[in-house]
Every structure is written in C-alpha cells, then in structure tokens.
C-alpha cells in the first residue's frame, strides 16, 4: 500500500534534519561519490568568498557554477540547508504528481522512491547543487506532461544552462507534445515543422535570455569557458563514480582530444536512434535519455542516478520481462558499499591503489548499463506482446521463445 505523501515528507525531513545537525554532514560533503567539482557546496562558498574579495570567481579553476547560482546563493547562503531541503521536497512532490499521471496500472507501490532513496538523502545532506538541477529537470518533465510547451521550453533551457547534457531531452519533449496534439511525426506534414519551429524558438529564446542575464550579472563572458568549457574538456581529474577521470588520467597526450570527443559524442549520440525507435513512447524515451546522461556524463554523482531511478516505479509492470534484475541490484548494492571502503584504502590507509577504486567504478557503470538495457528490453518485449499476444505459439503449436534477431 502506498504511503501517504505527507508521511513520506515528514520522514524525509526528519532524516535530513538529523543528518544536517550531526557530524556526518561534513563527512558526506567531502565524499567524491556525492559531490563533484561541478556541484560541490564547498566550491560555491569559495566562489562567493572570491566575489567578496573582489576577484572574479571564474578567474581561478575552483568554481564552475553558473552565475545564476551565484546570484541565488548570494541571498540564500545562510539558509542553504533549508534551500536544499525545499528543492529536494519539491522535486519529490513534482515527481509524485508526475508518476500518478503516468502510472498505467493502479498498483502504485512505492511512488516515494525519490525522497527516501539513500542517494538522494546523501546528495541533499552534502548540499550538492545536483539537487537543484534535479528539481529543474523534474519541473520540466511535469510541464511537458501537463502539455505546457512554454514552461517546458523554459525549464529545459534552464536545465541546459546548468549542465549542457539535458539538451538531448528536447527530442522526447517535442515528441510528447506532438503526440498530445495529434500531430503525426512525419517530415511531410507542415504542422510537424510548425510545432518544431515554435518549440525551438521558445527553447532557444529562453536560453538566449538566460545567458545574456548571466553576462549582465557579472559583466563578463568568463563563465562560458569556466562552466561549459570545463564540462566539455574535463581538465579536472578528481575521482568520481564515472568513467572519465581515470581514463583521462592515463591517456596518452597525443590521443586526448580524440577520446574526449568520442566520450562526449557518446552522450549525445543515442538521441536520434532512440527517438526513432521510441517515437510512440516519449515518456520512456525521457527515462532512457536521463539514464544515458547520468551514466556517461563527465562528472556524474549519485544525485544524477537517483533521478532516473525514481522513474522505475512507472514501469513496475515490466517486472515480469526483466532478465537481470537480481544480478544488477546485487552489483549496485555491493558497489555502493565498496566505494567508501576502497577510497579509504587508497587515500587514507595507503594499502590499496587507484586501480581498486577504478575497478569498482567500472563495475558500477556496467551494472547501470545492464539495468537500463534490461528495462529497455522489457519495454520492447511488452510492446511486442501487446501487438502479437502474450502466449505465443510456434507453427507446430508448441510454446515459442522470443529472440532478438
């Protein structure tokens, strides 16, 4: 039975408040799995301190947040804990409304996965700005589902402005809105192009406005290389749960640019094939895109994982077609437990080296890829059964097995 929303909110607030007041808050804020150079709270405070000293925060290489974050926290720096708690709760409420409108069956168990997910709790207690990014993405999805194209474009622009990767969510948003307006996705239809143009105009217009606003905030374009150049060129090799850091720490200089391009294209590359395959199912496409971004982005953290994992209850009806769920959940749990252990062994004890931590990173990412591809397989299989029936028979009448060919 689904717990009432208010109970979940109260429990979540209590857990977070207790952790904020304990000594674990400082410990969690330093963990590399939870914060990255892009969204650490320590760096936000450092940027504000540099601004107080009269130095541009972007003149050094320690601050990589957007100017709107500076503007926001200039007023809210003393209420940081409340800000992050509120953003966490609002993401949850948004996702709750979202999932209620999306869930196919009436069996809506554990709709509250976002707030009580330990990854989200860690991310909130560490005051990582990933929580704010997640809230914006959640608002974008909600406004798309509620068929509000303008708000959807604005939130998507804001989300792209924060970290470049959500630009791939344009495709599912457009597909969903077209579907709801009964415009077929066909290049020969004028209304298709007309709607596409409208959405692109709204999206690019809001993005342009936000970028110009950021320019006027600090009076210079310094933030463009500091934020977007940093995300794309990955100069900081601080260990995290992603694949980039060790790869580029050990890369031969000659091939660095090539592999950088390969890895960055890898994130954007699945948009078009997935959109073509899933053009009838834009909501699943959003989930797939979010998952691909969270796994293959340059500085992932557990907060990004929490976002796409909160969507899993929507496809609880796919459970009968999932093949590897037990293996995947065991590996994810084991890796989450091993990350801090091997980090301690490498950095503090000195009895392990970086390879141990790197191995767990690899395993964690393989598990995530398996999870996502498993859900995709289950989705496609269910679609096939919806078309051809659940119990299939071969020509001779015996029970058939389905394979991908």
């Amino acid at each position, binding site marked *: 039975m689904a717990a009432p929303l208010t109970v979940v909110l109260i429990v979540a607030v209590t857990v977070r408040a207790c952790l904020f007041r304990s000594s674990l808050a400082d410990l969690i804020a330093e963990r590399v799995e939870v914060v990255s150079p892009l969204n650490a709270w320590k760096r936000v405070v450092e940027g504000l301190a540099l601004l107080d000293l009269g130095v541009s925060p972007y003149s050094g290489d320690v601050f990589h947040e957007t100017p709107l974050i500076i503007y926001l926290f200039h007023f809210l720096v003393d209420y940081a804990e409340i800000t992050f708690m509120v953003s966490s709760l609002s993401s949850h409420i948004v996702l709750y409304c979202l999932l209620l409108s999306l869930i196919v069956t009436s069996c809506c168990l554990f709709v509250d996965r976002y707030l009580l997910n330990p990854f989200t709790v860690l991310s909130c207690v560490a005051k990582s700005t990933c929580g704010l990014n997640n809230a914006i993405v959640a608002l974008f999805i909600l406004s798309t589902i509620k068929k509000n194209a303008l708000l959807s474009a604005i939130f998507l622009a804001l989300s792209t402005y924060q970290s470049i990767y959500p630009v791939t969510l344009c495709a599912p948003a457009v597909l969903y809105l077209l579907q709801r307006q009964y415009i077929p996705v066909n290049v020969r239809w004028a209304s298709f192009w007309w709607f596409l143009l409208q959405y692109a105009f709204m999206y690019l217009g809001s993005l342009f406005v936000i970028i110009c606003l950021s320019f006027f905030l600090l009076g210079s374009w310094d933030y463009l290389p500091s934020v977007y150049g940093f995300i794309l060129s990955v100069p900081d090799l601080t260990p995290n749960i992603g694949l980039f850091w060790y790869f580029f720490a050990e890369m031969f200089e000659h091939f660095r640019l090539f592999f950088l391009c390969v890895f960055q294209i890898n994130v954007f590359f699945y948009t078009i094939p997935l959109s073509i395959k899933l053009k009838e199912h834009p909501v699943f496409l959003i989930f797939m895109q979010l998952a691909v971004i969270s796994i293959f982005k340059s500085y992932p953290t557990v907060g990004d994982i929490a976002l796409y994992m909160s969507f899993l209850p929507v496809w609880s009806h796919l459970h009968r077609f999932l093949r590897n769920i037990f293996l995947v959940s065991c590996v994810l749990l084991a890796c989450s437990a091993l990350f801090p252990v091997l980090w301690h062994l490498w950095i503090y004890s000195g009895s392990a*080296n970086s390879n141990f931590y790197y191995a767990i990173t690899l395993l964690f990412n393989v598990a995530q890829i398996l999870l996502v591809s498993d859900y995709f397989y289950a989705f496609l299989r269910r679609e096939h059964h919806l078309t051809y029936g659940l119990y299939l028979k071969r020509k001779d009448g015996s029970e058939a097995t389905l394979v991908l060919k």
Partner: protein
Amino acid sequence: MAEQRFRVYVCVRVGACVCMCLGLCVWVMCGCGRAHPKDDFQEELVIRPLQSGDVYASFQFRTLWETDFMKGNKVSHYRLFPKSLGQVISKFSVRELHISFTQGYWRTMQWGQPFMPSPPVTDHRFLRYATLPREIVCTENLTPWKKLLPCGSKAGLAVLMKSEKLFHSSFHSQAVHIRPVCQDSECTTTSWELRQTLNVVFDLHTSGQGKREWSLFKMFSRTLTEACPLASSSKIYIDITDNPQGEQFELTPATHLLSQAVVLGDRRTFSVYDLTEANTFGSMRSLNLLIRWKSSEGDMLRPLLHAERYVAGYGLQTGEIHTLMYNYHPFRSFPILLLDSVPWYLRLYIHTLTVTSKGKDNKPSYIHYQPSKDRVRPHLLEMLVQLPPNSVTEVTVQFERALLKWTEYTPDPNHGFYVGSSVISALVPSMVAMDTNNTKERPLFSSFFPCKEESSYFVRIYTEPLLVNLPTPDFSMPYNVICLTCTVVAVGYGSLYNLLTRSFQIEEPNPRLAKRIANVIRRLRGVPPLA
C-alpha cells in the same frame, strides 16, 4: 631533510628610445675614446662564531661600475664587471636581478638572523618572482659563479671557496645581486652594482669533528696568501661582540683593528684583518685565522621575527597549510607582508583562511589573492598582518590535492611535490639606533640596505619549503585502463545497438547436427529434406 631552492627576482623595464643630436653623439664618441668608466671591486669575508658551536662565514664581492646599460650606447669594454652578465642586462633591459641558490635550512633560533641582503621594494608591475624548490645545488653551480669574479678563484678570498668543504656544510647559499645605485644623495648619476654573496654555516660535528676550534684551514682546507690585486679593499671581519674581553674565545693572530657596525638592529663589534697590508700575512706569508673556544657560556640575541610553516592533516585528499610567525619584541607590534605562492595542484580554499594571534581573530588589513589556473599559474596570496607584541600569529588555509595526468608526475612521485617557501617581509623595530652617516667606511654587509629610518630595519625571511604527497594513478596501466574503459562503453553501445536494430521474432528450433548435414546432402542430391 635537505631542502634546495633557487630563487630569482627580475625587474624589467622596457628601454626607452633616446634621440641624440649630432654634437652630443660626437662628444660621446670622443669621450669614449679617452677614458672608460670607473669600476671598483671590493671583497670581504665575515666570520661569526655561533652559540651552538657552529661557525657562519659570509663572503661578499662587490663590483661597482659607473656605466649605464640602458642609455642605448653599447658597452663593449668590460674590465671587472663580467661580460656575460652585462650582456644579459643590456639585452633584456633588466633593472634589477637577484638569483640565489640555497641548500639546507637556516635555523634562525640557533644561528640568529642571517646577513642575507634583502632587495628593496620595486615597481610591482615589472617584478617577476620564481622559485624552484626541487633543484639541487652542486659544483656545477659554484664553478661558473666563481668565474664571474675578477680574480676568479686564483687570488684573494675566492681561493677559500673549495667545493668539497663548502658542500659538506649544514647550510650554504650563493647569490648574485645586480642593481643600479645612486652615486650621490641627489642621484644625478647611477652606477651598476654587482654583489656576489656566499653564505655557509659549518656544523660543529660534521665539519668541526666536535672540537670547538675553527680555523680557515679547518673550514676551507686553504689559507690566504694574498689579496686580489684588482680589489680596492679586501678585508676579513670576525664578530667579537660576545667576546669583548676575550673570555669566550681566543683569536689568533691578534689584530688591533676594530670596527663597529649596526647589523639588523644590533650593534656588533668586529676585529678586522686587512689583506691589502703585507704585514697581515706575517712571516709565513700565509694567514690562517684560528678561533679557539675557552668557555661555552653566553646567550645569543634572539631574533625579533621568526617564521615556520608546516602541512597538517592526514590522507591524500585534503590538508591544511599552517604558517606560524613569532614576534619576540616585548612591547612593539609591527606589520608584516606575507607572500605565498602555492602550486595549482594544491587547490586552496580562501574562505577557510584564518589568521589568529593569541587565540583571537586577527583580520589582515590587506589581502591580495590571485587564484590559480590549472596547469597555467599558481595561487598567489599576499597579506598584510599586524603582529602583536610577544605573540605567535597563525595563518591556516585548507587545500585539496588534485589528481594529475600520469605524465605530469615527477620521477619518484611518491617522494612528493615541493611547495616553495613563503616570503615574509617586515620593518622590524630596532633596539639600537643606526648611524646613517659615513656610508663609505662601513663594511659591505651592513650597507646593502642603507636605512634612513633609525628605529627599524628591513628584513625578509623565508620559511622552509613544504613536501606534499599527491594521490597517484597506477603508472603501469595506461593501456589496460584505456581497454577496460572502452570495453564498458562498448558494452553500453552494444546493448543499445542490439535493442535498437533488432526486433523480436519467434525462434525456429534448430535441428540436430546430424539431421542438418543429412539435409545439406539431400539438397545437393535434389531430394526433399527431412522434417
């Protein structure tokens, strides 16, 4: 632990183009033919026995040359001034140059303040400051340094500088300082001054074999036979301030020449040996000064300003740099300027900067901070802090250690990375008033920075360099890492590719191998296949 550092200060001003009229040109050319500018060379050696039984020897060689490298007329005739340095100065329009090579750490609390000359403050826009903490100083550095002297290492005080004894010491530092000085008080003409200094501290136990008896032969394995013929003055000063009646140590051969000078706010008395006088060398034609200790009492004047620096914290992720500054003056407080240049791979967090004196917060009156850019420039922190009397001021700042690319690590990466010393400059209030008249007669070491202000003297002290460990990747693994990571990306690509390009079909069962071969043969024969 031996620390080595190599420090350079260069001040460059872009040379201005000077137009000359024809008459002036002719006058200058005629003038050049008649007499070349005057140059003057002086050498001196100061020996100060230290309270701990060690002995501190400081050589200073000064060449003063009335010429101007900046005016545009090429200087071609070099006499006492080394040509290699003159060409560098004129080519790059260098205004001031200070290079020093140091090995070892100066223990201020045991040895007192060094005579290290401190360069005066210049126009900050043209000041370039560099430090190389990991470089090793060896004979290869000493030999060209000796070659810059007019007499080389053949005559004068430079014969004492033999590398096997010099490098077997607790501390040695050789330096070159070039700057323009005013000829008179109105500064109508300037001449170029080149000072070469060599400071060395010999340890009681390593070089002295435990006996509190020092002689020129024991320190340098040489004795002096003559002064440099090109020197206008060649003197040896022995610091006898702590020995007014000869009760602490005995000095042979005895000398009646005495000199007094105020050095670093302290009035010191020196016995002087003039090497230009023939009777200094005695009947043996060689001078071997001998200092024999009789008693080991007496205390040393504690320096008023002392600084230390260390890294705190554990693990390879974060750390803290602590700089401690001690002000031992009983009632006066004075401001100090702290300059810190921290490499980029230690990411400083300036919001964690705290300055405390006597347990209370001490806000600096001026902070200039330039954050680092990865792989381009280091952090630069400059602060003006007021040190309260008789107190310890602690400056702490937290940092995070970066993981570098595998090619950016030095050989033996687990040795650690050096962080250059921080520089503390201060005007320390003096206990003794300084006599600013009669600058010509004073020893060289006290005339480097003629202080007009009678109640304070300028001092620049350097803290020890730090050694910090960074997390390292596994250097044997580049190929493996590339393969494994690309495999994971390929797993993702492969799964998604399969799901995107293939569709579900009902599987037709595969007949057994024997049946399949039979079917193939049947097809060849033209016979219908089996079921």
